[in-house]
């Protein structure tokens, strides 16, 4: 009984360490394989152990000149691979620990083997690190001491000791005992890989918020020496240039989202009027063709715009043929009324598609309402206004609230493709600004700060909209 309690406690430590071991494999800061400055800074054990090309991408000269032997780097690669395999095996042992006694006992085997393999990997990297110290050209190769190796050794040894201890503390396996696991854990383990993917791609990026507090330039690492606290948050508002940028960008974002909101009733009108067409074939045709633009990318919308409005496009050649123009004009370079134009392209792309939800809602309206109205002498327009529109308002409200929640996120594709040097002042929205600032301009901390503000405000708006929906309609939208 007592033993059982001890093993349960040990298992908690063991599982936490297993998860930690898997995580460190992905963090470039904890990479013992960086035995030289030539190993890329952004590589983790995982990248080093899975892609020999990435590991040795800067080593071409070093190999050719004989500064570093290929064997050394192969040892590093092998070592990383061993650590990955080892820790994965350990984690498998950790998963098996959720089962019955026999499964737990069996699970000790992959754990022990895994840690031993990982230790072998550590040894290989250590050998390579020592080997690279003797390079004939230390100025170029810049050998580094793999300080993080000790972390891996300590992790492996603790896990090894734990699994051996647990193995001996577990009661003996009875002969007729079977390997089994409770259903709830089975289901969880089946779900685990997908959960891990979700965490890696959706939650792990949150770690990137720490870049907002550092004086980071791309390619460098974060150290305490370049920790700047809230400098970038202050900078954003105190620096004249960025403040002006931000005001301009916010104005564009809100203006274009606002125009979108102000015209969101159009798809409802589109649906109502389309349903007034009694010829079903024509209606079907309209519906098919007007929804197509929704399924092409913004790049293709730009290609369409290019074909119609560029110097030698459709409109130009028509006008030349008609004698209205001397030579072709590129209407896309014209930077007036950009907001309206963007709205028009948005409507061209989305109107037909957005109407579908309303069309479905219209077909769900009780026909008796219309019949009753006819008997009471209501005309066609009266019926549209007094029956159809009120029936669609709830749907409209939900979509409107969702749109309000997404007011800051108009996406960057559309504005990126339509941007020209002449209209950049009026077309840059928040998403595009962050992209240009961070990815093109390399000002990572500042762009992260802007992104953080956007994320937080968006979530606040969403919850606000949800709250309104709950109080007004008694239904939540998320």
């Amino acid at each position, binding site marked *: 009984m007592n033993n059982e309690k001890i093993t349960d406690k040990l298992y908690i430590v063991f599982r936490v360490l297993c998860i930690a071991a898997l995580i460190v494999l992905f963090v470039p800061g904890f990479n013992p394989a960086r035995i030289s400055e030539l190993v890329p800074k952004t590589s983790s054990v995982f990248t080093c152990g899975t892609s020999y090309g990435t590991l040795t991408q800067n080593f071409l000269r070093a190999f050719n000149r004989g500064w570093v032997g290929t064997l050394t780097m192969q040892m590093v690669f092998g070592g990383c691979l061993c650590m990955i395999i080892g820790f994965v095996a350990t984690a498998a042992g950790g998963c098996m620990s959720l089962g019955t006694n026999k499964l737990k006992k069996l699970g000790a085997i992959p754990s022990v083997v895994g840690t031993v393999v990982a230790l072998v990997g550590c040894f290989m990297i250590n050998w390579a690190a020592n080997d690279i110290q003797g390079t004939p050209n230390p100025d170029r190769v810049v050998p580094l001491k793999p300080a993080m190796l000790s972390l891996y050794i300590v992790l492996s040894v603790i896990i090894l000791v734990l699994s051996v201890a647990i193995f001996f503390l577990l009661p003996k396996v009875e002969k007729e005992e079977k390997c089994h696991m409770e259903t709830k854990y089975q289901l969880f383990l089946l779900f685990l890989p997908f959960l891990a993917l979700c965490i890696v*791609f959706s939650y792990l990026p949150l770690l990137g918020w720490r870049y907002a507090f550092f004086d980071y330039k791309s390619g460098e690492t974060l150290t305490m020496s370049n920790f700047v606290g809230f400098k970038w948050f202050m900078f954003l508002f105190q620096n004249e240039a960025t403040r002006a940028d931000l005001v301009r960008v916010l104005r564009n974002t809100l203006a274009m989202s606002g125009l979108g909101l102000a015209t969101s009733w159009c798809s409802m009108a589109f649906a109502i009027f389309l349903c007034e067409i009694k010829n079903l074939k024509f209606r079907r045709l309209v519906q098919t063709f007007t929804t197509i633009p929704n399924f092409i990318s913004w*790049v293709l919308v730009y290609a369409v715009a290019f074909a119609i409005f560029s110097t030698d496009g*459709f409109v130009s050649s028509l006008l030349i043929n008609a004698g209205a123009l001397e030579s072709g004009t590129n209407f896309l370079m014209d930077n007036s009324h950009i907001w309206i134009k963007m709205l028009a392209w948005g409507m*061209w792309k989305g109107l037909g598609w957005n109407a579908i939800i309303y069309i479905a809602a219209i077909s769900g309206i009780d026909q008796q309402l219309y019949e009753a109205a*006819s008997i009471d002498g209501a005309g066609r327009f009266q019926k549209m206004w007094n029956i159809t529109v009120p029936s669609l308002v709830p749907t409209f409200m939900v979509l409107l609230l969702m749109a309000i929640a997404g007011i800051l996120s108009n996406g*960057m594709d559309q504005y990126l493709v339509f941007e020209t040097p002449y209209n950049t002042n009026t077309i840059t929205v928040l998403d595009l600004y962050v992209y240009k600032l961070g990815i093109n301009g390399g000002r990572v901390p500042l762009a992260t700060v802007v992104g953080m503000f956007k994320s937080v405000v968006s979530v606040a708006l969403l919850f606000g909209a949800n709250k309104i929906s709950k109080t007004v309609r008694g239904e939540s939208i998320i």
Partner: protein
Amino acid sequence: MAMTKQEKLDQKAEKLYEKKHKNQYRRTPADWTFDILNHAFFLIFTIMCIFPFYYIFINTISDNDLVRKGAINFLPQGIHFKNYVAMFNVNDVGTALLVTVGRTLLGTVLMVMASAFVGYLVTKQEMWGRKIWYRCLVITMYFNAGLIPWYLNMSMLGLTNNFWAYIIPGVVAPYNIILVKTYIESIPGELEESAKIDGASYMTIFRKIIWPLSKPILATIAIFGAVGNWNSFTDSLILMPDAPALHTLQHKLYTYLNAASNLKSVMNSGAGTISGAAATNVLNAKTIKYTISMVTVLPILMVYPFMQRYFEKGIMLGAVKG
């Protein structure tokens, strides 16, 4: 089939009513003008939606000299398909097409399988910590860290300039998981129960019962996933700066639409692969742009009319939340 008097009378009344009803809203001039304007509006809007594609298409198959002069506006002249042949011979468009098709197929298949499986798992009340994990999935739809942290994360994982960057992040798609989950919950539980009594495991139930029964919803998310993959452009733009061979077709199209220098290199490489004399006739800046546009949009134009009902089903499902 003798009708009673009452029924006959009823029918007559109905016909009369219908006639009157019809007359009622066919008569007024306001109705006529409205109907005409309404039809005209939809006709014009439909033409606006479809004409650009037609225009691009006739310009890719017409005589290239006429195209350059801007003479092809409504009808094709001197029909030929050399432009398409030439385009496929240009190396980087070929690879871009391959990359795009590859990511569309692989990405969609993996996403659909994962969504189906996870959607099934999260309906299982007995899973350990089901509520928390499911919430974890759902929250990611409404909240994200932002572009820059996402990019830094991808580069930390070694997913820059790497084909897998197109595939792996898309495998777990929370929205699709919710759709599948909602659908599976509508399947009668007795089916699963009886299979369980017969000794079927979760995997067997999933393979033999859930998967076949949820095919309609899987088709819907597959079609949306495929279109999304085919259209995706920003991931290629941001994640593949040093790997031009991995650029998607959309990204290539964007590059060609923007850069004149690129066009020259295409024309040169085009001249290398097809006979020199024909090259000048086949490829000019305009036709190259139009042809790539057409190559990029054709799959969607071809698939869409057949898959329309799945698309429409998709948006209706979006209105139902789990």
